C-alpha cells in the first residue's frame, strides 16, 4: 500500500480484522489475501446469490470480486472498511451481469415511476398450493426477491441478510440514506404483495 495520510479515527485497519488483512496484503503478504478469501467468500457469495438467484452464477461473481480485490491491493486505503468495499464491488458486478444478461433470463419487473408493482404483481404473485412446504416457501421468497426492481432488491438483501445499517447500505450502493429508506419501504410493500398469501397462513 502506498503510504497514505490516513487519519487514525478513520483507519479501519486498527479495529477491523479484514481491513487489517487487506492492508497486510497490500504490503505484500499473500497469506493475508488467502485469509481474506476464506473469511469473506461465503458472505459475498450469499449476497450475489440473493441478488442473482443462481448458485453457479453467484460463485462466478464471487471469484470476479476477489480478482478485483487482488488487483486493487496497492491502491486500497483503509478509510473504507473492507466488507463495505467488497460488497460494493459485488453489487456493481451483479448489476452489470444482469444488464448483460437481459433478454436471456427472467427480467425484473419495472413498476413504473413510483416502483409500485401492484398491477404487475396481480399476475405474478406466487400461489401457494395446499399443504405449503418449506421448500416451496423458500422458492417463493427467492422468486419474490428476483421480481423486485434491482435497486429495491439490493437494499433489501443488504438490510435483511447482511444486517447493514442505512448508512452502510448507502455506502455500498452509492445512494443517499434517504433513498435507501424509501427504497426499503417500497421493497417491503412489493414483497407483501408478492408473498401476501403466505402471510395469511
Amino acid at each position, binding site marked *: 500500500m502506498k503510504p497514505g495520510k490516513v487519519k487514525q479515527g478513520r483507519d479501519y485497519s486498527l479495529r477491523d480484522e479484514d481491513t487489517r488483512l487487506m492492508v497486510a496484503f497490500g504490503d505484500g503478504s*499473500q497469506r493475508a*489475501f*488467502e485469509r481474506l*478469501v*476464506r473469511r469473506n*467468500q*461465503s458472505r459475498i*457469495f450469499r449476497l450475489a*446469490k*440473493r441478488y442473482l438467484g443462481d*448458485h453457479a452464477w453467484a*460463485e462466478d461473481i*464471487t*471469484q470476479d470480486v*476477489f*480478482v478485483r480485490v*487482488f488487483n486493487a491491493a496497492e491502491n486500497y486505503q483503509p478509510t473504507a472498511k473492507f466488507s463495505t468495499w467488497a460488497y460494493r464491488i459485488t453489487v456493481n458486478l451483479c448489476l452489470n451481469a444482469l444488464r448483460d444478461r437481459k433478454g436471456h433470463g427472467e427480467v425484473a419487473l419495472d413498476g413504473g415511476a413510483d416502483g409500485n408493482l401492484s398491477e404487475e404483481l396481480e399476475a405474478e404473485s406466487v400461489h401457494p398450493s395446499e399443504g405449503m412446504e*418449506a421448500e416451496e*416457501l*423458500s422458492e417463493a*421468497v*427467492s422468486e419474490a*426477491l428476483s421480481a423486485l426492481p434491482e435497486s429495491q432488491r439490493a437494499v433489501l438483501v443488504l*438490510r*435483511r*441478510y447482511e444486517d447493514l*445499517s*442505512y448508512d452502510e447500505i448507502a455506502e455500498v450502493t452509492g445512494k443517499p440514506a434517504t433513498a435507501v*429508506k*424509501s427504497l*426499503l*419501504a417500497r421493497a*417491503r*410493500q412489493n*414483497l*407483501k404483495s408478492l*408473498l401476501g398469501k*403466505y*402471510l395469511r397462513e
Partner: protein
Amino acid sequence: MSCEKMREDISAYLDGELGERELAAFRSHLESCADCRAELAEQEKLWALLDEGDASEVSVDLTRRILESTVGPHREREMRRRRVRWVAGVAAAASVLIAVVLWRGMNPPVPTSTKSGEEVGQLDAETVAVIKKLEVLENLEILEDLDLLQAAAENPIIIENPDTVSVVLGEGSS
C-alpha cells in the same frame, strides 16, 4: 389509512433507524391508528418469512479456484523476486566486509588487549565510521564473484569485546 409517509416510518422503525423525535411521534401515532398497527404487524411477519431464504453454501473448490485465478500466476514471480533480494543483501554485506578487510590491511590497528586463546576480530569505533563511509563500495565489481559471496555468507565476523562496537557481518538481510 396508511399513507406513504407512514409506510416509510414503519419500515424505518422496524430497522431501528428512526431518530429520537421521529420515534416519539411514531409511537404516539401508532396508539391512535389501527391501520398502522395492522400494517406494522404484517411487516413483522413478512420480515420473519424472509428468513426462509436459502442457506446454500459455496462449493468446496471455490477457494482453490479463486486462489488459482489470483495468487496462482503470481506465485512464481514472487518467489523469484525474493531470491534476487537475498542475493543483493548478501552482496551488500559482503562489500562492506571486503572494504573493511582491505582498509585494515593498509592500516593495522594499534594492538589492544584481547582474551588469550580466542580469535576475535575487533572493530573499534573508528572502523565503524570507516565502514559507514565505505557503503559506497557496495558496488565493487569483485562482488560478482560468487565464491566471495559464498565465503562471506558462511563466515560471519563476530566481535565480543564489550568496549568496542559489536558488529556482525554475514548473511545478507532482506
